[in-house]
């Protein structure tokens, strides 16, 4: 009798241990981009040059229900002349599995330094747009977006 109850306790202890062990991976965050990997991605694309705030307007809704399709547009204050124009616009995120969103390359023939597209966001996070000017200067805008239904993690 005593032996049996001891073995029962032991088995329960073992089962609890196994359950706890099995549950552990669930609380581990899915590997993805972090603010640090976003910084690394920015450095990879534009180098170590300093980025100033301003001139760029990142237009994206602050509260998004469905992270699978989010309208985003970027416009940059630039005369777009032969000598002073925007060369490229890069957009990054903090928490998607990958930090890059899009890089567009344009020139004086664009007439207007702006574009729009639709993006995916896996979580509420900051989105950063950086414009590269022809003189090498870099300008940025950051928008915090709250996402209620995340993209990327859904299953078929």
């Amino acid at each position, binding site marked *: 009798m005593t032996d049996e109850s001891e073995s029962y306790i032991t088995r329960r202890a073992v089962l609890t241990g196994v359950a706890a062990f099995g549950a552990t991976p669930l609380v581990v965050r899915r590997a993805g981009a972090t603010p640090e990997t976003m910084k690394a991605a920015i450095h990879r694309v534009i180098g170590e040059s300093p980025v100033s705030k301003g001139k760029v307007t990142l237009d994206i809704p602050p509260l998004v229900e469905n992270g699978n399709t989010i309208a985003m547009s970027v416009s940059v204050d630039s005369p777009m002349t032969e000598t002073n124009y925007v060369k490229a616009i890069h957009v990054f995120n903090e928490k998607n599995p990958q930090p*890059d969103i*899009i*890089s567009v390359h344009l020139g004086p023939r664009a007439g207007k330094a702006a574009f729009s597209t639709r993006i*995916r966001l896996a979580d509420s996070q900051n989105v950063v747009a950086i414009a590269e000017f022809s003189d090498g200067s870099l300008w940025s805008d950051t928008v915090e977006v709250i996402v209620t239904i995340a993209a990327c993690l859904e*299953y078929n």
Partner: protein
Amino acid sequence: MARTLINVPPNAKRGQVVEIKTLISHVMETGYRRNESGVAIPRDIINLFVCTYNGIEIFRADLHQAIAANPFITFFTVATESGTLQFQWTDDNGRVETASAKITVE
């Protein structure tokens, strides 16, 4: 590979800035999803979009997994001369889709 939809104004005044809208049907599979049996669905996204105006590149975009399915891109160009705008999308499997539109500049 896919259906495309282009919107370019058919007529423009010389020097006018015109808006170009492009849409292509594509799954833009991120490579992070799994099917019912738990097998990872391989990544398949359009990674490059290029627009040329009478053969000269005026707009290029490097796309990543964060671009939504059926990529929609709009941008601007100065109407310099009558001619053709060519659009080209390239995906991870090397498939290329092209489209073109005519513009008349007065």
